[in-house]
């Protein structure tokens, strides 16, 4: 082997090495983004159920609505695994509560009502956004993990494959706005 060929081979190997470690770094960044999105989603869900529980125990609502909301919020907050079901149930309970006829009008003027309802609405928006971004991160990570280079060199290491978080978080009452709406509103 001439010195020239050796140099070319060494350079090639170095290039491939740099490329692989660059890809691995990219995958690592994707996993980091995924972790951040997971934390954000978790925080948003916890905040939503806390505010729902606060509204339920505020004395602003009638006892039937309060019990309904407290039960749903409690189930959502205490679910360890299989969170999707109770979180969807909380969305449905919120939707049923907020779509009562004249709900806002009847609460208007009561002390603290505006703040709590506003906070709950914003918490629900946060859940919607955080879930969207989390699922985006999952999709990007899964796509990167499936590339042949990542598979062949096991670039993902021992990180478990992420899963999508699928819940019903559309807050528009059925029939009024499609699930395509980007920012759902509890009531118009």
């Amino acid at each position, binding site marked *: 082997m001439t010195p020239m060929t050796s140099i070319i081979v060494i350079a090639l190997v170095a290039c491939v090495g740099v490329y692989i470690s660059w890809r691995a770094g990219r995958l690592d960044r994707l996993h980091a983004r995924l972790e951040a999105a997971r934390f954000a989603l978790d925080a948003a869900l916890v905040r939503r159920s806390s505010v729902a*529980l606060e509204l*339920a*125990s505020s004395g602003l*609502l*009638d*006892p*039937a*609505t*309060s*019990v*309904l909301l*407290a*039960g*749903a*919020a*409690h*189930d959502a907050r*205490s679910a360890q695994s299989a969170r999707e079901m109770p979180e969807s*149930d909380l969305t*449905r*309970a919120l939707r*049923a*509560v907020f779509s*009562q*006829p*004249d*709900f806002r009008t*009847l609460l208007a003027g009561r002390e603290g009502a505006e703040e709590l309802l506003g906070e709950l609405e914003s918490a629900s928006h946060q859940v919607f956004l955080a879930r969207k971004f989390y699922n985006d991160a999952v999709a990007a990570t899964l796509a990167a993990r499936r590339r042949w280079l990542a598979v062949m060199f096991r670039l993902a290491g021992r990180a478990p494959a992420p899963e999508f978080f699928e819940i019903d978080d559309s807050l528009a009452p059925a029939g009024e706005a499609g699930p395509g709406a980007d920012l759902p509103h509890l009531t118009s």
Partner: protein
Amino acid sequence: MRVGLVCPYDWEVPGGVREHISGLAEALIELGHEVSVIAPADDDAELPYYVVPAGRAVPVPYNGSVARLAFGFLSAGRVRRWLKDGDFDVLHVHEPAAPSLSLLACWVADGPIVATMHAAMPRSRALHAAQPILASALEKISGRIAVAEAARSTLVEHLGGDAVLIPNGLHVRRYEKAEPLPGFPGRGGTLGFLGRMDEPRKGLDILLEAFPLLAAERPELRLLIAGASGDADDVLPKVPAQYRDRIVILGRVSDADRIRMLHSVDVFCAPNTGGESFGYVLVEAMAAGAPIVASELDAFRQVLRGGQAGELFPTGDAAALAAATAKLLDDPAHRASLSAAASVAVREFDWSVVARDVVRVYQAVAPATGRVAVSL
């Protein structure tokens, strides 16, 4: 007496609590009392003359499934108006911990209030979360009734206080005689199931698992299903293809066909896995004289007198259900004796007996606290 009854669940959907309230209302009317029932229902729905609609029920997730309830300030307003118009001697709410009309009635009323607890609620933590909200409304109740031991212990454990045990009633006479459905029960034997097909706790899946075990040896055995809700297309795929044509799904049936259905089976199966406080379907089947195989839930064991009035099998065990059912199918004499024992045992559940016990509770609370008033 002038009695106001409150139903928390949609009047237009058949269910144990609704059946209970209409049975009680009719029995009280027969005893000479004046009765008005308020229930979630559309304003233009066709209702018995004693039912006042409180507006359409809203489907919401509650206690592990979807319930159709009425809540909110507008519903509370309807209850208030009904109480004012009714001027009752006693207010009798049902399932007051459910987030619906009964709880609202406790909230807006003062005076003699009687409450009946129907369901056993094992999900105590969720109830715990709602406890402070419930407490102020529920402490107005001066007489509490539980329809079964399980409902009573729920009350004792989660809400405090005790209750008198008065079982669910039914009009036994209406069940005693009926023409079987055409072609039933047939020579090869027929099993029966009554209940919501899409509600896992009703246990249809366990029966569908047991049916092939029985059908393999009995070429003409059929299964008759009357389901209040659920889709036949979801049910049949759970059974091997060669047995599917032996399953007859009636879907939702009228009250009359329900009784005819109970007279059309050789063995009635109640494979419920839990959440039953009393077992109304069992009492119905007993009144119709159907031999029964039921899972050994506490409530079922009690209704069937520990197994004297029907066979019990370990809850959730499809093989045991198949074995118990096979034993009955092969022994007509045993079927006849179970059926006879059931017909005797069911008499204590007749509304004429049960309603008198309820009236005694009314009499115990009414004089002490005056008439029912609106507090808010």
